[in-house]
């Protein structure tokens, strides 16, 4: 409701010609890190992309090609050396509650329960206890962790920990979810199950999603659109794929396998 209002006001004031105003715009982003004081490492070069409202965009690339850096720039944790990130037309300069970040390595507070972790965002922003409990409970249920509210992270499996991470990001009420290889630490079986869960959660509570992965299957299974990065530094955009397979998808579907073959072939060329 709220985001629809917002989109229409954007529509008027920016005089866009369609309702698909991009939620996020990255304009010519480059990033150069200075390592050990003197060494320049060119990590990202000239990344330009637009993410539509409620789109599931996957950023695909092998390890060490700057995926996390790109996501952290969009999150506002790093500043780009060149270029800008726009969120709803506003330049991103620092982290904000409009973007929820999910880390590969869970990053839960070990001394807080599932409930304590999930209600963190609202609590930090001064939401009264009863209300934030309600919000947190809603997202705990959404990710399927009901009955585990009072468990501590070490009592949970990897998949459950990442569910907590996702619920926590959701509970802070972001418009954009940024997920950095969220299932990279899970075993293959759990991973596939969590991908299905991600799809279900996203269908229930649509958000704009930027999902980073190094796994082609995962990318095709989840994405509306895949942006693949080149496999060497500096990370450049290699290609963009529109995935218009019907959801939920089947890993063994002929079209799925065909796409998989195509993307695999294309990415081996750039490696």
């Amino acid at each position, binding site marked *: 409701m709220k985001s629809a209002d917002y989109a229409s006001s954007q529509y008027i004031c920016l005089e866009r010609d369609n309702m698909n105003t991009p939620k996020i715009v990255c304009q010519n982003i480059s990033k150069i890190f200075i390592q050990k004081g003197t060494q320049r490492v060119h990590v990202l070069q000239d990344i330009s992309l637009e993410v539509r409202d409620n789109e599931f965009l996957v950023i695909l690339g092998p390890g060490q090609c700057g995926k996390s850096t790109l996501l952290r720039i969009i999150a*506002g*944790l790093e500043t780009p050396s060149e270029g800008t990130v726009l969120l709803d037309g506003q330049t991103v300069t620092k*982290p*904000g509650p409009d973007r929820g970040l999910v880390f590969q390595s869970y*990053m839960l*507070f*070990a*001394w807080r329960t599932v409930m304590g972790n999930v209600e963190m965002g609202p609590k*930090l922003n001064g939401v009264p206890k009863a209300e934030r409990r309600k919000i947190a409970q809603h997202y705990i249920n959404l990710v399927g962790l009901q009955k585990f509210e009072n468990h501590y992270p*070490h009592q949970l499996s990897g998949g459950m920990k990442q569910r907590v991470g996702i619920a926590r990001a959701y509970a802070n009420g972001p418009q954009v979810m940024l997920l950095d290889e969220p299932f990279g630490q899970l075993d293959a079986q759990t991973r596939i199950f969590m991908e299905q869960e991600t799809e279900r959660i996203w269908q229930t509570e649509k958000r704009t999603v930027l999902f980073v992965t190094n796994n082609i299957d995962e990318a095709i299974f989840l994405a509306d659109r895949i942006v693949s990065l080149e496999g060497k530094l500096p990370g450049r955009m290699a290609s963009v794929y529109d995935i218009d397979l019907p959801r939920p998808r089947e890993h063994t579907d002929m079209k799925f396998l065909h796409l998989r073959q195509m993307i695999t072939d294309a990415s081996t060329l750039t490696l």
Partner: protein
Amino acid sequence: MAYESVKVEKPLSLILLPILSVFTFFSAWELIVDTGIVPSTMLAAPSAVIKLFLIKLTDPNPDGAILAAHAWTSGKEAFIGYLLSLAFGLPLGLLMGWFTVVRGLARPIFELIRPIPPIAWIPLTIFWFGIGIEGKVFIIWLGGVVPCVINAFVGVRMTNPTLIQMARTYGASDWQIFVQLCIPSALPMVFGALQIALVCCWVNLVGAELLAADQGLGYLISMGRRLALPDMVVLGMVCVGFVGAVIGYAIERLECRLLAGIRR
């Protein structure tokens, strides 16, 4: 039940060998004094120390107080100094770990004072406080503050930087990150400080009492020296060691229980 509890036998040698070593140690000690290899004016035999211990339980002579009174005085001084050093050192160290301003202001002074052994302050404290309890509490406090500051500081500095960034993406302020993230992360180091500071306090207490006191275990030792009574010296030493070990053990138990509650 997925887990069966299994009784693990302690190897017999780990039970017997400590008994053997302690027994041998005390026998040898007794023997070298009894046979006169070391004259009894230089070292008291264990039997003499035990005898004096039983006497001193009730007899205030010749040093003016019964053993329990000495132990009580020392314990009181150490405890007050210890608590004060925790109350001051831990917050200072925690704040220094997170807030650049506090670190910038406090660090140089801390680094200047740190290398001075607390015992070196005794003459000044005698000018300031005489030989009353305040001077000794001050010395003990000095000894305890240093490990408190260092451990709390390091504990905060070791907070996972990615967790800090995570908290920032949720809009946490500096103060919120400090209270809700840095302090919990630093807790294991802080508990380490409780132990280390206690040892420092206890060690400095005896030093302070050796020079400026009219009661206490350190005073007992120094009276033993002045009256040329080696058994009294050794008795004082044994009591210092014993009380210190008991307090250390108590803190360790407390730490286990509290940390178990936190880590779960």
